[in-house]
């Protein structure tokens, strides 16, 4: 993969055939090798002071999420309260990075966060006919504008996986570019996360291609999954995406973020993700501007582990809140 990225046509998406050729010429990923590397990194033993650092860093990287048909304003407000003050017994616990909701609840989230001292916490909205991505570009754009107009500073869009599997990379590029433009056109620039839905892409080669496609089209973050299907943010998938942002930085000088969402339920899982970041993309990515974890149940497990580290004994579910 030594071809330079100076080709402007590649970068502005006008030459779909060049884009297609570029993506298919990316080096292959050997499945067994990639999974072996991820498995080796999972054996890292993170203890004592490193564990304290990892837990607090992980908490600060969480996009606390609720994406259910049954979400109500009450549910969203409870989530926001938890986002600002995850551990009511311990004010030293950091706040999370963002709350992530459907776009019609963005206004409620933003208003509530602002009223409880959570101005610094972002509101991310899933848009573009999340999770399926099956709708017209007009609907997807409106979806996005609605979110931005009601206060979303982050947009989590999905790619059209049908188009990807059918090889229509140009269509995906154009959609991402259009959504990016919508993100740029508000009062304040919203940052754009592009969800690849790696579980539907299946192969690591596809994950690599989709990662590059999203980055070339203007993603600020590439995100593994909608969280609605399994498998989602498995370690080898996140590894391949971290390799992509690392290599993109080497070629262009621009750092793109990675968000791992779906299937990260325990502190152990979260720490494995941080090790992957540390030893693949590097420590520049070890902060919420470049790495996020999309989760809901994870936060409580991190808090239980945090309590254990500070008190010395195992904690229990009664000592963390249900939102």
């Amino acid at each position: 993969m030594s071809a330079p990225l100076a080709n402007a046509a590649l970068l502005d998406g006008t030459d779909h055939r060049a884009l297609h050729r570029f993506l298919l010429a990316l080096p292959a990923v050997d499945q067994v090798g990639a999974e072996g590397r991820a498995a080796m990194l999972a054996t890292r033993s993170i203890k004592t002071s490193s564990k304290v650092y990892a837990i607090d860093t992980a908490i600060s990287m969480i996009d606390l999420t609720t994406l259910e048909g049954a979400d109500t304003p009450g549910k969203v407000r409870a989530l926001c309260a938890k986002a600002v003050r995850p551990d009511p017994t311990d004010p030293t616990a950091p706040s999370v990075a963002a709350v992530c909701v459907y776009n019609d609840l963005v206004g409620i989230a933003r208003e509530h966060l602002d009223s409880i001292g959570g101005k610094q916490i972002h509101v991310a909205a899933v848009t573009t006919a999340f999770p399926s991505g099956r709708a017209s570009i007009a609907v997807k754009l409106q979806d996005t504008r609605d979110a931005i107009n009601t206060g979303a500073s982050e947009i989590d869009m999905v790619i059209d996986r049908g188009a990807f599997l059918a090889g229509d990379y140009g269509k995906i590029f154009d959609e991402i570019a259009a959504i990016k433009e919508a993100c740029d056109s508000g009062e304040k620039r919203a940052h754009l996360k592009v969800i690849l839905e790696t579980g539907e892409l299946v192969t690591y080669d596809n994950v690599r291609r989709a990662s590059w496609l999203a980055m070339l089209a203007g993603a600020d973050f590439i995100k593994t999954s909608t969280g609605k299907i399994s498998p989602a943010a498995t370690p080898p998938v996140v590894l391949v995406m971290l390799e992509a942002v690392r290599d993109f930085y080497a070629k262009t000088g621009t750092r793109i973020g990675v968000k791992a969402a779906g299937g990260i339920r325990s502190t152990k899982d979260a720490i494995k993700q941080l090790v992957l970041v540390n030893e693949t993309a590097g420590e520049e990515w070890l902060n919420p501007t470049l790495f996020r974890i999309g989760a809901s149940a994870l936060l409580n497990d991190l808090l239980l582990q945090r309590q254990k580290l500070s008190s010395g004994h195992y904690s229990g579910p009664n000592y963390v809140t249900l939102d």
Partner: protein
Amino acid sequence: MSLFKYAAAPESRAIVNIASSYGLFIDGEFVDGTGTAFKTINPATEEVLSEIAEGSALDVDRAVKAARRAYSKVWSKMPAAERGKYLYRIARIMQERAREFAVLETLNNGKPIRESRDVDVPLAAAHFFYHAGWADKLEHAGVGSAPKPHGVVGQIIPWNFPLLMLSWKVAPALATGNTVVLKPAETTPLTALLFADVCRQAGLPAGVVNIVTGAGATGAALVSHPDVNKIAFTGSTKVGKAIAREIVGTEKSVTLELGGKGANIVFDDAPMDETIEGIVNGIFFNQGHVCCAGSRLLIQENVQDEVLDRLRKRMAQLRVGDPMDKNTDVGAINSAAQLGRITELSNTGDSEGAERWSAPCDLPAKGFWYAPTIFTGVTQAHRIAREEIFGPVLSVLTFRTPAEAIEKANNTPYGLSAGIWTDKGSRILWTAARLRAGVVWANTFNRFDPTSPFGGYKESGWGREGGRHGLAAYLKQGEQA
């Protein structure tokens, strides 16, 4: 890595119980040796771990006699299925005591605890498990319909994978009905001595396995003993040749697993990230103390810069240090002598004009350490391209065409291993067919399995270990009907 610098994560030593001294394990019990006792140390700290008996020629004779008695009176008379069940017991006990073995191996050898725990010990147990199942199936091994064991086998093993090499030798020997006198390496006797305790727990009949510690002289006494029917040796090519000279033309059978200078060939369409891992694994796994190490990197010239750039970045992430720390990637060099050899040979790389680059790392003050190093601008004529360094030093050469890669890879007296990195299946098969090496890894490296025969062409040795082919060395064809 200052933001997320992993805090010390030491494995506890409490699980091992190292005696202040050990005798020889002969005829089912520990007895005093009549040679001169010597110390064994932890190469990461230079701490003395224990005092080890030296087996004199007299002791070796005693052990061989015990092995012969056990063979004639017990082991050769035992139904094959029962023999197998002893090996199953041994495998199970090794699994039960896995952590104990891993810690002891790391303390005595210097290899990272992660490797002993995740590679050495599980594979060693698996070898016993696999061979246990062969004991009563030998008529299907491809050595005739009624193959017979040799009798007493003498086995000499090296210090780089002490317990694993013990299992590669002892498991097939016992499964095929032989009895054993084993000489562990001088610097790494402890896991073999712990294995003696496993034999006790398994109820293995006395004399079936005998362990005689010592150095070169003890090994020589075993090789030349008239009542040993077969010798199995893993170690340097130099010593292997001496053994061959001693034995060839006599009634004794011999298998040798010797040195190597494996070529790791990277084509321009290799899966890049996994290839870098494979290169690193190929030469820095086990501190490069691996006979089948990928110690010559052959890069297709058109991707040389990219591969080297990524390789250096990856090497800079290697964690070198306390082998008992669970996050250590590269441990200690096994001995002062070996460190001296590595240093001397690597220095010829400098003096012969190759360019040295080492991973930046803080090496501990005590113990024996060598930073992971690559030499670029190496050609076949350099000593570091021809001679086995047996340390974490990689010689990098280039090639232009597949045929040239083959020529360079084969241009060596050794023939143990080779690696092939490419995305193209037909090229893997074409290259593998032309490499004169006993083990070829494609898009992977340093993979071992009890079912997979291992051994070398040319000066890398005679015979195979593991798999159906590996059994043949321990059997002779029965009488023709």
